[in-house]
């Protein structure tokens, strides 16, 4: 028994999206408490959306998060389309899929190279990698080439990789030209071998943290970031519009973000959940060329979230090449919305997992209220539980050095790829009005 007392604080997590802190208290060798707090200041988007025109809503809500912005944009558009009774054309659906592919290629590559790879190489930061070291040379050039391909795809299809301008309610305001299509196909084909190298890197990575949890994600007839029903590895099947009814909002007093449980259980969303649940639906070329890596799933190793992201980059490239090769894009007029009082719900698979938007509009198309549930909020309770288990295991194995413990904690948090910008910029609120006095409960 290691009877150490230790207080450890990480004030500012590095190499993650947004700001987070961790406080750990260890007494007589027992981890008494771990508090994973999201320290980004709330920006109150669930209040800010009220009173806005529905046509302005998707661009407003994209501003919840820079890195996940195009996922928020498409999720809000889907919610608005459902509220207005608009069914997007098959071409629009393809453009939405391509937008999500551009986002996932760019975002996963940013996470795997700039945030995680320094831990693989025992370096402080990615830009300090040595060009004369053959492994680090390849990583540097692979990283920026893959990111550029995802960025370029998003620019061609959505106008920008951050806060895309072309996606709108009911369609896209611009479609890719043939020249743009051919140029991005070539670029995606060129980076494909680099992605296979990335998959091999994470397949060979021996980091391990096994834990039992429920995995949840969307499932369609293909490996989709947009369509389908919500399923779990425990056999549940939930329609999009019913998803929120199963969620329990959990107050975390020291965090500016909300936690969630599903049917009273902690659960995980994101690439690991998606590959665990739907690996047989990955693109045939992905399955052929990443066969040995995919065989490791379903997995309960949280670090395999990194490998799952690498596999998803390949899938996004393979399916994007097919869609671009097989579609002749033509400009389609946007449908004119007919306003009515209605509720709309959108659910998409953002890079970090399921994202839920709900909007309630009046008969002038003005937003009365809405709600947003982001992936990091859904993973937050698991992250905290896993940190506690990890630290106890380290102490039980004679690791008492603060720096080593902190390094292992940061590695594990990064494996979840949390996005604090998303998690903290809305407010879930239950309010009760009695005798004209407003009080709050269950926050």
């Amino acid at each position, binding site marked *: 028994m290691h009877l150490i007392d230790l207080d450890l604080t990480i004030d500012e997590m590095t*190499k993650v999206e947004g700001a987070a802190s961790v406080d750990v208290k260890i007494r007589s060798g027992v981890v008494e408490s771990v508090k994973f707090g999201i320290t980004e200041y709330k*920006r*109150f988007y669930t*209040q800010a959306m009220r009173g806005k025109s529905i046509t302005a809503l998707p661009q407003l809500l994209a501003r919840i998060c*820079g890195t996940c912005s195009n996922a928020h944009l498409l999720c809000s558009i889907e919610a608005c389309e459902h509220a207005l009774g608009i069914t997007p054309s098959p071409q629009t659906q393809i453009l939405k899929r391509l937008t999500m592919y551009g986002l996932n290629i760019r975002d996963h590559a940013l996470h795997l190279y700039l945030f995680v790879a320094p831990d693989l190489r025992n370096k*402080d930061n990615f*830009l300090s990698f040595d060009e004369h070291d053959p492994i680090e040379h390849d990583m540097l050039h692979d990283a920026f080439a893959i990111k550029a391909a995802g960025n370029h795809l998003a620019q061609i299809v959505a106008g920008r*990789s*951050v806060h895309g301008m072309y996606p709108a309610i009911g369609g896209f305001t611009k479609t890719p030209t043939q020249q743009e299509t051919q140029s991005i196909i070539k670029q995606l084909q060129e980076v494909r071998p680099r992605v296979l190298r990335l998959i091999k890197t994470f397949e060979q990575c021996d980091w391990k943290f096994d834990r039992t949890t429920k995995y949840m994600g969307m499932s369609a007839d293909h490996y989709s970031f947009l369509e389908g029903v919500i399923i779990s590895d425990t056999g549940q099947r939930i329609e999009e519009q019913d998803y929120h009814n199963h969620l329990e909002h959990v107050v975390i007093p020291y965090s500016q973000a909300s936690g969630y449980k599903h049917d009273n259980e902690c659960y995980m969303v994101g690439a690991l959940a998606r590959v665990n649940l739907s690996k047989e639906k990955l693109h045939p070329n992905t399955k052929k060329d990443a066969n040995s890596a995919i065989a490791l799933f379903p997995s309960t190793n949280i670090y395999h979230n990194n490998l799952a992201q690498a596999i998803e980059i390949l899938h996004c490239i393979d399916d994007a090449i097919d869609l671009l090769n097989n579609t002749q894009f033509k400009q389609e007029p946007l449908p004119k919305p007919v306003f009515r009082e209605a509720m709309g719900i959108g659910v998409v698979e953002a890079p970090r997992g399921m994202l839920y938007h709900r909007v309630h509009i009046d008969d002038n198309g003005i937003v009365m209220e809405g709600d947003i549930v982001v992936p990091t909020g859904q993973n937050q309770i698991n992250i905290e539980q896993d940190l506690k288990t990890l630290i106890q295991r380290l102490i039980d194995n004679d690791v008492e050095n603060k720096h080593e413990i902190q390094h292992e904690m940061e590695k594990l948090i990064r494996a979840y790829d949390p996005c604090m910008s998303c998690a903290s910029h809305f407010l879930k609120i239950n309010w009760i009005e009695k005798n004209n006095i407003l009080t709050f409960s269950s926050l």
Partner: protein
Amino acid sequence: MVQEKKKLRIGWFTFSCCEDSTVLMTEILNDHWQEWAPLLDIRHARVLQKENILDSMDVAFVEGALASEEHIEKLKEIRTLATKVVAVGACACIGMPSGNRNQFDDHTQEEISFLTARFSHLPKVLKLEDVVAVDAKLPGCPMNEQQFIHLMKAMLQTFRIT
């Protein structure tokens, strides 16, 4: 003894925002990392590195609006340490959209007041110029890519980094 080549000492800081310009900066690196990496001494950039040092800088890039006293104090410290402070993105330049709550009606202000009190938010979200002098601005949501590249070249010239 060979003298180490002078580099541009920079910091990249983020306050209340969606970090869209941070993401865009990492995308601009796709085309410029080989050109800039040898010229930059990144003193502080939470998104890129763990070993961050808050000391003298030629240029501090600051993204986001100010939502707390802690933000104000940190920005003032950055101002004293940096020769040039650049406001990056709409939230830093005009305080929006992070300052959504500045425009809320009384009922909505009351609704959120328990949280603004719990986490010691400022009464109003502020833009950088409300607190310190700013030497350059990169407006936009996110910032404009070409303007950032132009500014980087100008800063390298100003500080004679080759």
